[in-house]
């Protein structure tokens, strides 16, 4: 089976002079949860916009489910990809939650007789059933993002892209959305590509890609990528606190295995104490 996202030698610039994206290649496995990490302005969001054809590449190639992205295939490809953007206030169209979820379905010419059932099903899936007749403006940020996700689910895409979807939310809202995405990934085997600064989310993902100044600089399992404090700091990023602590413990001769797992680290320290 083909990979849901394949990007080959992609280059993009806004002004035809300085590359915002420079010779980027990566792929995403079917059913995987991939996170895309990078400093502000590293080109992460530009990648998302290129993938769904909101921006047009200069050179290189994007394949979605084996289809080369072009003006001929874009309509087909957009049915396969759902995207949630950063600002929950910028993605509402309907005057009620119900209308908002219906918007995408209407665009895809879904039989109106079936629409209500679909809407109610997905509203329930994101736990927003009781808000269907409310105005979106009255919802919290986390609730708004859940409605946005329901609207996307209603079109049953294979791939869900999150473009810093939780960065404007408070900790509760973040947790709501992270849990929901985690469930969708598990229950529907949905392929997830999440652009994020949330190190906790990166820890829980299958795969992480790190960008710096428009290029991909690291690509691997979170365990391998996040355990390198020096490297990540040089990329203007941060590592989990436990990794920093392990780095300092090393100076005293204490070696911690896989310190991104905080609980595991505490366990290892407890065992060392018993052996003392």
């Amino acid at each position: 089976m083909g990979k849901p996202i394949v990007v080959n030698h992609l280059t993009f610039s806004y002004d035809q002079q300085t590359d915002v994206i420079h010779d980027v290649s990566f792929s995403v496995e079917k059913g995987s949860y991939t996170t895309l990490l990078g400093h502000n302005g590293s080109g992460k969001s530009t990648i998302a916009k290129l993938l769904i054809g909101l921006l047009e590449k200069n050179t290189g190639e994007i394949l979605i489910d084996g289809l080369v992205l072009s003006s001929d295939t874009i309509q087909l490809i957009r049915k396969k990809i759902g995207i949630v953007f950063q600002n929950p206030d910028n993605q509402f169209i309907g005057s009620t939650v119900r209308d908002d979820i219906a918007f995408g379905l209407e665009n895809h010419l879904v039989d109106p007789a079936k629409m209500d059932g679909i809407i109610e099903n997905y509203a329930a899936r994101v736990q927003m059933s009781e808000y269907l007749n409310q105005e979106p403006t009255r919802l919290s940020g986390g609730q708004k993002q859940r409605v946005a996700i329901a609207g996307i689910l209603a079109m049953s895409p294979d791939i869900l892209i999150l473009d810093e979807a939780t960065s404007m939310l408070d900790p509760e809202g973040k947790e709501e959305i992270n849990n929901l995405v985690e469930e969708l990934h598990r229950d529907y085997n949905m392929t997830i590509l999440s652009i994020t600064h949330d190190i906790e989310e990166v820890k829980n993902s299958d795969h992480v890609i790190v960008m710096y100044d428009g290029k991909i600089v690291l690509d691997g399992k979170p365990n391998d990528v996040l355990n390198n404090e020096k490297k990540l700091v040089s990329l203007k990023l941060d590592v989990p606190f436990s990794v920093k602590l392990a780095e300092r413990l090393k100076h005293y001769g204490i070696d911690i295995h896989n310190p991104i797992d905080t609980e595991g680290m505490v366990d290892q320290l407890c065992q060392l104490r018993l052996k003392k």
Partner: protein
Amino acid sequence: MPIAFEKVSYTYAPNTPFAYEALKEVDLAIEMGKISAIIGPTGSGKSTLVQHLNALLLPHKGTVTVLNKVINSQQKTKDLKSLRQHVGLVFQFPEYQLFEETIIKDIMFGPLNFKCTHEEAKNKAYKALSLVGLEFDLAEKSPLDISGGQKRRVAIAGILAIDPEVLVLDEPTAGLDPQGAKAMMELFVKLNKEEHKTILIVTHDMEQVLNYCDNVVVMQDGKILNHQRVSDYFERGNQVNEIHMHLPPILAIKEDLIEKGFKLEGEVTDIDTLAKSIAKELGYE
């Protein structure tokens, strides 16, 4: 005490079925010349509280005293304009409010509004630009052509150009990458130490509270649950759990180790002292 709330209540949409009491008889005195964090769950009244500081909201009951100006429900907003020169409020995601053609014009907007001459406004704008650590050659660029982190700095510079004594920031680091967030917090510490600004920061990030703030105001359900020195607040970890927030990672690990029998000697204030203390306990020192 130049910033004080006395029995302040505020209700949104009063006398309607949607009426919602966001502040309930709040008493609070903010220490001048310090950095105070305002924390609490969503809907606890943090943003409502800070909007009273420059009279964007007027209390329905009680009085707010800010720098010898008394604000109550009877106040005419026109009398409070001068207050906004002394208390600068930076909203969440202020970069969405940049609107001028060039960065320097955007920063000059505030001073010009407060009757500075063009020349004065320009000087203040350049000073603000350097305070927030932006290069002067950005001045003539469009605010749309810079990165998100830079835009946020421009928005903050716009407030600093008014030279307020009190700077209030609602989640100033949301959406910034880790190093951008760190640089932003260091900027506030600098403004506090060198420019002697009183700073209030609404935040959800407990690590920032621990690392950068002097005092912490904890809100819950429209009331002040707690107001004390940061060092005292974190002394008792259960206070943090009370409001369903997470301890900063350093304290979470420390508490966990102590609970599992570790005796961590000496004062553990940062990552280096924690590492040292663990090494000592394990006999590696």
